[in-house]
């Protein structure tokens, strides 16, 4: 009786697990499959997951089109600069929060936490005027600096937590030997904190790579557009070349997917700490 019940439960749970997996992955599978089809057979009826037209043609079309390649180059430049900038600025701030007590610490800390609640659309309205006034409109700087506002809080909070786990004696040892705090930070703390930095860096990269709204408004010319905008531009441009759009989407997702697969553990740790936007 009990054994039977267990067996039945196992069957039910297995069916649910497979159904959930299909729900999660089918759209992605369909995107990949469509990217290999010819545009004419994307809407073939009845649909097939793979058909005789399967080829790399749409991928080749994307990577040989200099406009589309430019989207990728832009996204890499912006994302890498955002990661470097966020880590540098964030580590400095985290060091201050972890190693000093100073007037205003509480206020600064809540200010940084509260940034995560501010809707991007609210900031975007004044950004338009501000970025033009600063002469940054349609430049990489406009994107890098504004992205850093959204990526910094997570970096500061995570790195402060990380530094707090490292003993203050480490810094003091350097300073007794005549070194400066600056040296203690960059030569001792930062190398030890590498795992934390990898996790923060990955998240930052993902956020920067996936950002859409700021890039939509703060850049204008096609040669300044990033991948998410580029994908969306394809929708409006020439009459819906679906297989090319899917190939571009797959290519645009690969950098983040690779990070995700290789650094899963960090991803999950970061996700469950709740500091990140979905």
């Amino acid at each position, binding site marked *: 009786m009990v054994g039977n019940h267990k067996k039945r439960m196992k069957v039910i749970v297995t069916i649910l697990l497979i159904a959930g997996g299909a729900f999660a992955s089918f759209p992605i599978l369909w995107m990949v499959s469509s990217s290999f089809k010819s545009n004419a057979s994307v809407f073939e009826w009845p649909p097939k997951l793979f058909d005789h037209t399967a080829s790399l043609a749409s991928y080749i079309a994307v990577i040989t089109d200099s406009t589309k390649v430019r989207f990728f180059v832009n996204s890499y430049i912006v994302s890498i600069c955002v990661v470097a900038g966020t880590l540098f600025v964030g580590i*400095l701030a985290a060091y201050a929060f972890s190693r000093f007590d100073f007037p205003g610490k509480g206020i600064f800390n809540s200010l940084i936490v*509260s940034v995560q609640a501010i809707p991007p659309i609210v900031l975007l*309205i004044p950004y338009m005027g501000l970025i033009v006034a600063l002469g940054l409109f349609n430049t990489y700087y406009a994107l890098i600096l504004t992205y850093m506002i959204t990526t910094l809080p997570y970096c500061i909070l995570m790195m402060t937590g990380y530094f707090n786990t490292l003993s203050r004696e480490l810094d003091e040892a350097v300073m007794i030997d005549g070194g400066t705090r600056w040296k203690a930070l960059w030569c001792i703390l930062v190398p030890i904190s590498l795992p934390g930095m990898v996790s923060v860096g990955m998240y930052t990269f993902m956020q920067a790579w996936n950002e859409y709204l700021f890039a939509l408004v703060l850049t204008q010319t096609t040669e300044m557009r990033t991948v998410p905008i580029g994908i969306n531009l394809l929708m409006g441009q020439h009459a819906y070349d679906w297989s090319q759009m899917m190939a571009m989407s797959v290519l645009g997702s690969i950098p983040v997917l690779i990070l995700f697969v290789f650094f899963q553990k960090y991803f999950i740790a970061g996700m469950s700490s*709740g500091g990140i936007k979905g």
Partner: protein
Amino acid sequence: MDILGKKTAPYRYLLPTLILMTVFMVVPICMVIGYSLVDKAVVSKNPAFVGLANYGKLFSDTTYWSSVSNTIIFVVVSVIAHLVLGMLFALLLNSKYFTTRTKTIARVIYILPWVFTASVVAILWKLMLQPSGIVNYILSIFPQISRNTEWLSNRSIALAVVCFINIWCGYPFYMISILAGLQGISEDLYESAAIDGATAVKRFKYITVPQLRPILISIAMLDFIWTLQSFNVIWMLTGGGPVNATQTVSIYIYKLAFQKVNYSMAATAATVLLLICVVIAIFYVKQQKKVRE
């Protein structure tokens, strides 16, 4: 006073952050509030101060209220569905019926929708939801559903479809947080309950849910704030249409500012949205403090 002295040291480390936060956050927020108090902000060289008149205008705009009601539906449906699906999938991934290997593979697959950027999510669902697309094909096994349903351009179903897509790409965040919480619940609790003869449903109700409560409240509040602001996926799927059927507050603001070039009214609606988000954020921070204590 020595600027390189000990007292200024923490501020020197904070300086880059403070400059960035001031220029790109504090100043813009002041600007937005300022825009909302004047007429023809940005557009005119000498905008006239009108006090709270823009707020009066905003609250008497029926389009605004329809976007508010769309947003509420969107947020409530998304948050509840995320919670239910996230819980269900987390329980599945924590089930004792599967090997660790199966669970690890399943976890990767289940997180996937969350990894993709909004424009990919939008474009791939657009492909699937085309009238001659795969969704209609799969649904054609039910004869009562039309084979040519226009999912995104039908006024009465577009909002539901947009909600569904947002549910699809948002649940993994809940699932992972709940999974981490489930793994933190002591086995002893379940064992002693099993000895007392508690059924699975009772164990879920009296052990799992109360133990997860702080996590559930935190993630639901975070998700509430994020969904309230969501723009990207809806914008790329429908642009707020058909006929404003999927227009949320963020889209309303975007259209006002960047299509109708009415920065004053856009800033007014943005200030209201900001206030609501700040209030929820304060509750969130308080909740977090309670959890830590």
